[in-house]
């Protein structure tokens, strides 16, 4: 046991820090008197608000610390571990600060933004904890480039074998290779959309999702093969196409998993910036009431 993940970093040291913070915040909350309902305006509310605001600023600093490569201020893993635990505690701190006074106003807007950021962080944490394992298993020790190298090799071989078969088979295989799609836009990557087509006979291109149709097409030709050599070629072709299908599935899965692993940050970070703006406005507006 030599590698430590984010959550168990240093025996989950920051879990205890954040639990301490939560307990302290709760104590502060219940000491608010009966003069007015618990809210952000009591001195306890101000303390909670200040702690929450400082926490938000500190949490965003991770983006800077991550890029200060020669910094010796802790390790990035330590910072990230603390980011996760203290970021989670922020929900409690901010909720207690709000005193659950929800309304259609800027303050609630800032609160909602914060919740969105934290929830997207939870999703990110989930992907960080579980997807690398899935990606590693899916790649079976190789890199993505190796999968593509194998795919291109299969393409070449399939074309070579197909060229020795009947023209319609050759056209079907060639077109299925040419019209295989991988990746694409955000949606296609995240949901493994497959817009593959192939040309069957003289007709228009038909859908070839997951390469199944072209395999079926070549398979259907097999019983009608005239010569022994043709049958052998077709059989070899089917093996190649099936292997190609398997490799494509694997690449598609890799793209999908990797996509999810990356995409949340493209949400988490911009919303964080929006949150910072909202937070500043929230603080300014608060002081107008003062």
């Amino acid at each position, binding site marked *: *046991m*030599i*590698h430590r993940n984010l959550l168990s970093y240093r025996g989950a040291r920051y879990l205890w820090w954040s639990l301490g913070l939560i307990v302290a915040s709760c104590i502060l909350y219940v000491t608010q008197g009966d003069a007015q309902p618990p809210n952000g305006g009591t001195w306890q509310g101000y303390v909670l608000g200040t702690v929450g605001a400082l926490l938000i600023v500190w949490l965003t600093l991770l983006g800077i610390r991550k*890029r200060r*490569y020669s910094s010796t201020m802790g390790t*990035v893993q330590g910072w990230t571990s603390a980011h996760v635990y203290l970021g989670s505690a922020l929900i409690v701190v901010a909720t207690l600060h709000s005193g659950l006074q929800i309304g259609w106003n800027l303050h609630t807007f800032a609160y909602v933004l914060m919740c969105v950021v934290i929830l997207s962080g939870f999703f990110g944490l989930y992907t960080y904890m579980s997807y690398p394992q899935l990606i590693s298993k899916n790649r079976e020790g190789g*890199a993505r480039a190796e999968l593509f190298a194998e795919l291109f090799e299969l393409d070449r071989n399939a074309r070579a074998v197909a060229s020795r078969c009947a023209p319609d088979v050759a056209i079907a295989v060639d077109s299925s290779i040419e019209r295989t799609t991988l990746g694409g836009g955000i949606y296609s990557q995240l949901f493994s959309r497959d817009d593959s087509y192939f040309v069957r006979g003289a007709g228009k291109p038909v859908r070839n999702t997951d390469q199944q149709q072209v395999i079926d097409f070549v398979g259907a030709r097999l019983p009608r093969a005239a010569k022994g050599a043709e049958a052998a070629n077709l059989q070899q072709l089917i093996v190649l196409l099936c292997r190609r299908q398997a490799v494509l599935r694997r690449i598609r899965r890799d793209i999908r998993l990797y996509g999810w*692993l990356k995409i949340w940050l493209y949400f988490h970070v911009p919303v964080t910036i929006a949150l910072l703006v909202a937070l500043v406005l929230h603080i300014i507006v608060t002081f107008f009431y003062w």
Partner: protein
Amino acid sequence: MYQIAIIGAGPAGLSAAARAAARDRQARRSSPSYILLEGFSAHAKTIQRYQKGKHVMAEPGFLDLRSDLGFGAGSREKILSAWSDGLSQLNVNIRYNAEVRKIGGGKGAFSIQLVSGEVIQAAFVVLAIGLEGNPRKLGTPGEDLARVQYQLDDPKEFSNETILVVGAGDSAIENALALAEQNDVWILNRGKEFSRAKDANLNAVVAAITDPRRRLNCYYETSIKSVTQTGGAVPLTVVMQTPAGEKTVQCHRIIARLGAIPPRKFVESIGIKFPNERADAIPALSRHYESNVPGVYIIGSLAGFPLIKQAMNQGYDVVEFINGNDVKPADHPLLEYQFFGLPFERTVDEIVERFQTLIPMFREMNALAFRELVIESDLMVAFPPGAEFEDARRRMAQLQKKLAKKDPQPRMTRVIREGEVIYQPGEFGTSFFTIVDGEVLLEATGPQKIRTRLGRGEFFGEMSLLSGRPRLEKAIAGPGCILVETPRRTMLKLMNSNEEVRSGIDWIFIVRELQRHFAPFASLRELRNIATRVTLRKLKAGEVLFAEGETGDSLFVLRSGAITLLRRQGEADQLVSQVRSGQLIGEMALMGDPIRRETATANVAAELIEIKRREFLELTRRDDARLDPLQKDVSRRVVDKARMQVRPEAGTLMNFLMDEGLGEATNVLVIDEALCVGCDNCEKACAETHQGVSRLDREAGATFGNIHIPISCRHCEQPHCMKDCPPNALRRSETGEVYINETCIGCGNCEANCPYGVIRMVYDAPKKPGLVSWMIFAMGSGPGEQPDYKPSAKSKEKGKKATKCDACVGIKGGPACVRACPTGAAIRIGPEQFVDLVEERKR
């Protein structure tokens, strides 16, 4: 009849000829007293062949140039033109295309026969022919035709020609592949396959030959019988012997890359003796560079001095020596600085001579080699704390002030206090110490503090030198001690050329290992006898030391390398233990169980000391033998092996690590793929902390289960990269990191020598903007490496330099790659943690 014939117009020969020319001019001689003979058609053949614009370094920086020709760091063109200017200015008597076939006669009347048949008479001969040798020719009629070439400077020079490339080595393959870009190339291989080539070249050439779209084809088992110039559009007619019989083809040109004839045969034909059969042996020379054949002098790389400046200085000096002028060599002041702090006053030559007589092991060395050894070493002198020490310190400080302007600073005497620690256990020492005077105290670590006193003529530090392991003991400067600290590289060079030194060091290593493992209180004298009876075994990678089920009658101490122990389990071999240098193997055979329970195989090249039963009993029968810890070690190892045996998956993982060469690693980057999110922050951190170039490739490298070993330096026990670095730019720090310092000349030897592909040759990357100017003002490129950067004109002129991981030596907080990993996937570990790595892993 000339006074001096200089053979070879490289830096050494040119400088010698220039000195002779200058002397002639001084003496107002009308005809030259010397002749410079060069087999090639231009001077400085090797440097001419460098790529255009290559930057040539002027190492070592602290040595002054002494020559009638100019030389300083600069581009190849600048240096070559400075030399040809010098040659014409001094009107040097140089004869090109004058290859020497034979040298006969003796001092005062040598007759030098050229290939052309002409004979030149000279009183003295200076050999400055370098190590490269002449290219091997075809050996068939037509081998000297202009269109039969033995080198290829620029493959782009030719296009749409039919070219035959003869040879099956790396240079033939590389030339053929490059030429095939725009020519029709046939490669002629005398054998059935390309077995001599590097793997990368082998794969590339076979792929190109089988690819119908490439313009490269191969004739196997084919040799040339004759070449004739027939004229016409395709001017050469070549008759070849193929397996199918004789065949005649037409081509435009032949590029023959058949290797070089090493100059040693030629040198030996003159009567010059080499100390041994090793390929890198250097002939014995006097202080004046004179060989065992009176009147024949050897300078430059053939004399063991590969750097340009050294060679040029020797060229100057040798002509002065021949003329009876006993000048002080250019390195004389260096020795003066080194001896400056000694507590006695003598001339430099006297001190060198005295040192040599004081150290028995070095007595048989030739004077020149010993002098070089001292120049490359550090001298340490211990003074009693107090006034004497302060005074010595002050004197050195004054000298330092005087030399402050010299950059880099030459080595000076290192003044230490008596009682000061020379090294601590655990430090990665790379040097070897010889005691010239006084005493040194060695203090072994472990349960008992065992102290050994060493005196004049003795040496220590051999264990780290031979095995690459960190120091095991503490060394303390004793009263009046004067030490020569010799760097590893110099020592290895010496061991290769001097049998005396090699056996001396081998012997003390064995004695100290016996002492450490079995009889810590035995004196050297007692152990000497036993040491002569144990044998040294060498294994190549993959060789088997002993097999499971055999009966054994000896145990082994692993001196260097790594050994895997495998147990047969059902159908498969199961790894149960990994033995590293300094540990025992097969000890059970002498401790109750004569049957070998494992098969021992070397992972990497290994050296072992074999101890037979009789010697073992002799060692352990002593009253003060170290039996208890030995037995404890043995039972711990038996348990460890059993534990590994019952968990096959751990053994498989360990096997994978060993296959990846981690058996010789001291510090390796291991990534847990189950944690790695592929953010490449490790690479970015590496680039950002190392001048914009990452020294690791995260994605490349092998994976087993979750464990990924990226392409990154492992800081081997015996670094392959350090083997052959001309300016000695590759260093190992005390904490073990292997790094490259700024004296790198960009030769690429280390890149070629590293079996793990972790060294790259790169141009300097452009300077990075600060984070803020990048983020807000969009200046330059962002954090991390920009792999397609355009090198600036300045960095192009400087040329490509080797870069490798230095494990962030000198950077606070440790390796940046590890500190920058947000998920904890990247760690750097040493071999002692491999067991933890393969232990049942849960998070």
